[in-house]
């Protein structure tokens, strides 16, 4: 009897399943509505910047940006065209690109080398050295600004792209070394031993085994570092003047906020496009990096 019963009940009636699902979805409708409202609320400010950046100064003076959301005919790329004619801003964007590229490649390469030594080469004081790196994780940038500002003036590194790259690289190192060392330690010992027995030199091991295996961690690190350097305000403000990256370059414009929104809004939004694109494309690595680095 029991077996008969179960065989009868096992095939699920699609109708009851569907209705049960609909009921379940309906039961959760309030949560869905709340979440939609929160998401809209969270997107409004950025939308405001975007719409503002598309308005001519005379339109922007007419009323709030939200009155133009439904009038796409008033939108214009004029402000962006003017921005690209503004040599100050294009130069700042170019500096930002150079500094970001340099200050991402240099620290990752340097940190990968150091992390390899800390993970796989035996030498006295290794653990103490790693402890030092963990300690340096928390040194705030403010601790270095004044001495480096003076040092750069003497070394002619003030207001130069290499000066900015070196500063960002050094301050990225503790975190990069920490993250990569922890990742490299996880590489199976057998794999490393096998390669060593095959006679591979440490350099060969580093380039042929460890670096390729470490790519996911390196990708996370690169994303975080690109965003960090691209978005930096303080370092560029203090250590550069004519060759400032975009954020410090337009910071000066904030003093006349209101009258110059046609310059501020497009420059701010355009400067956000690169990090937003990178975030959209490599979201997974971004999140992984944050998870790995939430000790910082």
């Amino acid at each position, binding site marked *: 009897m029991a077996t008969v019963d179960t065989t009868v009940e096992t095939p699920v009636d699609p109708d009851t399943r569907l209705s049960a699902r609909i009921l379940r979805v309906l039961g959760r409708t309030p949560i869905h509505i709340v979440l939609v409202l929160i998401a809209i609320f969270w997107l409004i400010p950025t939308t405001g910047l975007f719409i503002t950046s598309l308005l001519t100064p005379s339109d922007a003076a007419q009323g709030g940006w939200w009155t133009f959301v439904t009038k796409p005919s008033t939108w214009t790329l004029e402000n962006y065209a003017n921005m690209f004619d503004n040599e100050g801003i294009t130069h700042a964007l170019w500096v930002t690109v150079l500094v970001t590229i340099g200050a991402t490649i240099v620290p990752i390469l340097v940190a990968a080398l150091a992390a390899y030594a800390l993970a796989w080469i035996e030498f006295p004081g290794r653990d103490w050295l790693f402890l030092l790196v963990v300690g340096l994780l928390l040194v*705030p940038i*403010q601790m*270095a600004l004044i001495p480096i500002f003076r040092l750069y003036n003497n070394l002619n590194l003030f207001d130069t792209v290499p000066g900015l790259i070196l500063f960002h*690289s050094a301050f990225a*190192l503790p975190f990069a070394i920490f993250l990569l060392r922890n990742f490299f330690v996880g590489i199976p010992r057998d794999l490393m031993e096998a390669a060593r027995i095959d006679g591979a030199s440490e350099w060969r091991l580093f380039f042929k085994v460890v670096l390729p295996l470490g790519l996911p961690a390196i990708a996370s690190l690169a994303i975080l570092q690109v965003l960090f350097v691209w*978005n930096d*305000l303080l370092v560029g403000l203090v250590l550069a003047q004519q060759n400032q990256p975009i954020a410090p370059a*337009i910071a000066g414009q*904030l003093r006349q906020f209101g009258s110059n929104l046609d310059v501020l809004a497009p420059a701010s939004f355009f400067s956000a496009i690169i990090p*937003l694109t990178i975030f959209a494309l490599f979201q997974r690595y971004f999140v992984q990096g944050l998870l790995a680095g939430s000790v910082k």
Partner: protein
Amino acid sequence: MSSTGVRVEFPAGEAPPPPPKASLLRRSLLPLSFLGPALLLLGVWVIYPMVATMYRSLFNDRGTEFVWFDNYELIFTEERLQTALKNNALWVLIVPAAVTAVGLIFAVLTERIVWSTAFKISVFMPLAISLFAVGVIWRIMYQQDPDRGAVNAGIAAIKGEFGSEGVLSQASPSTDDLEGSIAQGFEQKQAVQPGDEALLGLTAIRVPEIPEDAVQAVQPEPLQGGITGVVWRDFTPGGRGTEGEVDRGELGIPGATVELRDSSGDTVDDAKTEPDGTFAFEDVEDGEYRVAVASTTFAAPFKGVNWLGEDLITPSIMFAFIWVNAGFAMVITAAGLASIPRDTLEAARTDGASEWQVFRRITIPLLAPVLTVVFVTQIIGVLKLFDLILSIAPGSTQDDAATLAFVQWQVSFSGQNRFGLGSAIATFILILFIPFLIVNIRRFRADTT
């Protein structure tokens, strides 16, 4: 090549032999060649400046005189630094807890939602934008004029919805028949009785404030056992009208609140005017009454909250900071939630625990380590906060919004060149980090052993 041959001959399972003595030099050179670049960068750009800043903090601003801890004393005595200390304390007390809580709520709400990825991207996105652009974004949002700043526009819309906004901001009586002010309302001097009409003429009205639905005012019809009347703009463009009478070309004031007050001055009834300005009180008991245009008619229009003024600047910046960092807290917390074993939760549910009990007694304790990480990360971020202050606070309220990191930059680099004080503030921030440093190192040691 020969070494390869030698190694192959070792029996399997045995460790490789100690390297030959000839390679001792190589053995110490090897780690150095890997570590060298990192040590150079860390030495010159992090360790040397750190020591130099600590040393410099003991000298006066020009660096000519050793002053012991005078600069540190200034941190607690100089006015703008006292403000900064107070602000930093407020930030630490409010913001990390708020960010953690919002992140937890979002993570829990989205846990079993199909489209949670879309939600998470919306909330997470601000984290990718520079804090400087975030500043510009919120400067646009916080503009005071409700026609320009979206935050105040939202408040104005809510206020309008609940009808607390008046029709006019100013007006005065057109004749001596009325007395009072816009704060008390304008009341008739002469009492009226049921069956009478009340003519409440107003002038000195700002033209843009006349409601759009206003039409030609109408002389009210008398009503048996009731009091009728009209509130109108007693002013004929061109000036040919008679004061106190409803003339052609004079508009009624719709939406005005009219009160019926009895002989002791108590309001016994109220009414709203029609587009032609007329109103009516029906079934009024016999007696003497005065009709008044109520003061709520003249409630001042909403001028907008001054979010960037000295009183609200810090809460305003805090809100922007939470807007940025809630996504971070949400993602980290969601990862923590995902790692909680389903079985534990299901077991509690089958034992009859309510959802709230499960959340309170099981989820939260299991999430505690993750929430701590989020909380500590936010404290560190708050103590270093600089960008948002510079980009949101206008020059006039920058000092009211200042944090330690902001004053550090201000006294050192905005033309003041007070390097002694700047070094002391930087060192002070580092000292505030020491507890977290100790926790980090302890955790690392626990991890390795």
